[in-house]
């Protein structure tokens, strides 16, 4: 018979934990101790009833008590061996997954900035009460910076970082802003109430429009749909929308009242919405179905709203702490491999200017365009920006200087010749 395949993941550890929970635990020893107590109590009763039996009873008690107590000790042994076995399996499981060494830590030297990032994270996640506990606690016990490879003297910039952190860390303003965001999100998600979000967007329509955001229109369109179907609730997954004869009329009035200033930018979309009114009795079978039977509509506007709200505050839409910690966990296996190589050269990756290896991340983790000079293979920086030659090809400033030596030169990628002064700096 072939041996069963080795359990994957944590299953082997779970199996051993089963043994500890079900049998290899202290209940047996407790039982043994209870039997000693029973023996002793019985003996006591006997002596109390007939004092003459005391010497004999006590003498006869020795052996059984001893046996039970030895049994109690013996019954602890399976716990010991069970834990040992579990420990060995644990060692095996993590043998190739060592805990990254402390030299990988670049942040202990900036504890105030870490605390600020955490408090902002808690606020943006809606953990207001935890955030306020934390802000108070951190205020009572300011953190102590520890040296790291890249910042061996952290106390030097601690006071500057304290000021920087103080700005937003203790800021009632930020707290108020996130509270407002959560209130509006709550109304959207739980109450299916668009009013507060529409009010917020309308007050900032200039800023939003300049960003090319269509949040306000998205919100109003959803409001129109809600009125059209006659109630505030767009259908849940299991419950199809019911049409209310009054609905289309209400929606029409709403469109006349509110859509006026969307005419220029959203003429096409509005036309489609109004077109749907012809099908008011059976919108499900109409070509406008997709505007109405959209169960994710509420989640979509909530996401758009969060993104715009945070962007106007200069903050990223998802928690940077979350994105960075996740990216870090994805990067660590790669950095660990690197660590083994770098140990030989006695350098730490945390002290370099640029990571020596490429870390593959999911595409959603790329936020900036990247320019890598095709000649030097270096990334562009402020000091070495990308330069576009008249032919439209782009190379880095330093490469341009090196190739041209200040005089007319041929583009490395096409036959066109040009003078370096004709190259233009571009920004990605």
């Amino acid at each position, binding site marked *: 018979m072939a041996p069963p395949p080795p359990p994957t993941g944590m299953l082997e550890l779970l199996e051993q934990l089963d043994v500890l929970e079900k049998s290899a635990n202290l209940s047996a020893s407790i039982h043994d101790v209870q039997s000693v107590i029973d023996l002793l109590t019985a003996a006591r009763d006997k002596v109390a009833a007939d004092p003459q039996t005391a010497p004999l009873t006590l003498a006869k008690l020795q052996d059984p008590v001893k046996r039970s107590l030895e049994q109690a000790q013996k019954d602890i042994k399976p716990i010991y061996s069970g834990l040992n076995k579990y420990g060995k399996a644990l060692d095996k499981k993590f043998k190739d997954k060592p805990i990254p060494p402390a030299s990988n830590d670049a942040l202990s030297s900036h504890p105030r900035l870490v605390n600020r990032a955490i408090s902002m994270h808690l606020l943006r996640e809606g953990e207001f009460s935890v955030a306020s506990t934390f802000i108070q606690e951190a205020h009572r016990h300011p953190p102590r910076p520890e040296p790291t490879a890249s910042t061996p003297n952290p106390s030097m910039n601690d006071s500057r970082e304290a000021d920087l952190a103080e700005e937003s860390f203790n800021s009632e303003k930020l707290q108020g802003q996130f509270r407002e965001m959560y209130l509006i999100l709550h109304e959207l998600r739980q109450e299916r109430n668009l009013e507060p979000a529409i009010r917020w967007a309308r007050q900032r329509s200039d800023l939003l429009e300049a960003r090319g955001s269509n949040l306000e229109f998205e919100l109003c369109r959803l409001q129109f749909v809600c009125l059209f179907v006659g109630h505030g609730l767009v259908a849940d997954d299991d419950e199809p929308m019911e049409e209310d004869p009054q609905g289309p009329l209400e929606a029409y009035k709403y469109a006349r009242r509110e859509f006026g200033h969307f005419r220029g930018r959203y003429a096409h979309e509005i036309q489609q919405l109004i077109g749907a009114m012809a099908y008011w009795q059976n919108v499900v079978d109409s070509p406008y179905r997709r505007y109405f039977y959209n169960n994710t509509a509420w989640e979509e506007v909530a996401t758009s709203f969060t993104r715009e709200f945070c962007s106007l505050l200069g903050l990223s839409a998802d928690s940077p702490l979350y994105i960075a910690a996740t990216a870090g966990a994805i990067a*660590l296996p790669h950095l660990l491999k690197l660590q083994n190589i770098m140990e030989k050269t006695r350098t730490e990756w945390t002290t370099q200017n640029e990571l020596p290896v490429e870390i593959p991340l999911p595409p959603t983790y790329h*936020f900036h365009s990247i320019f890598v000079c095709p000649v030097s293979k270096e990334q562009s920086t402020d000091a070495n920006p990308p330069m576009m030659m008249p032919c439209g090809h782009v190379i880095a400033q330093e490469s341009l200087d090196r190739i041209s030596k200040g005089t007319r030169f041929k583009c490395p990628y096409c036959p066109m010749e040009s003078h370096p002064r004709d190259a233009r700096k571009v920004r990605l």
Partner: protein
Amino acid sequence: MAELTTTKLNAESHLLLDQPLLRMPHELSRRNQKNAQRYVENSTKDVLSSLTAAAKTASKRPTPDAALSSLDSIITKMQGLKRKLENLHDEEMRIHKSNRARLRHLQDLYEVQSLVDVKYDEWSRTRLSRLLVDYLLREGYSESAAHLAASQGIQELVDVDAFVACHKIEKSLREERNTSLALNWCKENSKELKKQGSMLEFELRLQQYIELVRQGHQAGVGDVDTDMDGLNGVSLDGASTGAGEEKLVEARAHAKKYLSASGDFALLGKAAGLLAYRPWDDVKPYSELYSESRWTHLAHLFLTTHHTLYSLPPRPLLHIALSAGLSALKTPACHSAYTAPTTMPLTSSSNCITSTSVCPICSTELNELARNVPYAHHSKSLVESDPVVLPNGRVYGKERLRVFCDKVGVEPGWVRDPVEGLGGMKWRENEVRKVFIM
């Protein structure tokens, strides 16, 4: 060439941050088992000898009362043992339950294959909460830690109690300058500490000695009005019996009992020298021993010893994760003087092509923190498809530029820079040119 992006999740190599999650309950279980064994062994010895003694007494001078009272006391002892074992049993089952939750949590990751699966997203959020609670506990913010753990419902995945106990001892050293809690802890863990070759207990005993000598010298100031002999109140014949003198004698006895066995003669010489130099004499190397900073050193040493004993990493795992993440995400643009205020994920789906969101490293939370870490390495340019350049030098994907201009309502034949929005310059479409990025 190495791949540039990936969405593949390999749980087996992904769990670098998670070993301590399982180490702590295992260590706690082992400690629990050892305590149980100790209790049972001690009680066995005790009860058997009491029983033998009682039997002997009963056979010699049979007084029923004596027999009853010795039986009663043995029963009380056994009931005490049973209670202790029951408490340890509750504790072991509590630890197992929490360990099961942790194993299940890690097992969940094995069920996910892709980094872009929402299940991974959820899992990673739980991991972040864990790392945050761990960080808060390490930094001594235990109230916040407990609050966050409860709010996220992850109490079984974090070790609030263990850290609270640890910080109580650390604080007793750092702030209260008291060695008794720490010495107690050393006693409870003496076997493991010996195996580790830990110097903690010795250092604590040394500190006790230093404090006795300090008190002796301070009290000695009152004992002797003039200190002409230069012996600082230490009389050589032992005739004087001032309070200061008594303390110094006590110190010597303490040193003999706890320090001399160490065999560190240089240190012992220094310690003996303390008797001759007072704290305010400010003579090296004795002033170092008298220094207040020794308490900070002791607090530190305790934490290191504690963390090693429980297989906890020396620095918070949050720092390790974030340090790596900041570098993996950082680009030269994140601290550039010219960076556009808004950026966007390059692979935004077409329906939200114009919606921009701020890069996490450019965002206030992390920007300053990321200043000192290396930026990510890239071997290839990463730009939107069909890039075009505006007269101001900004490069955009042709499609994104078109959609943006449609959305904000730029007149046909004209374009605007999305970064500058409606407030900025406007150019004719024919001024926009193609750019080749290789």
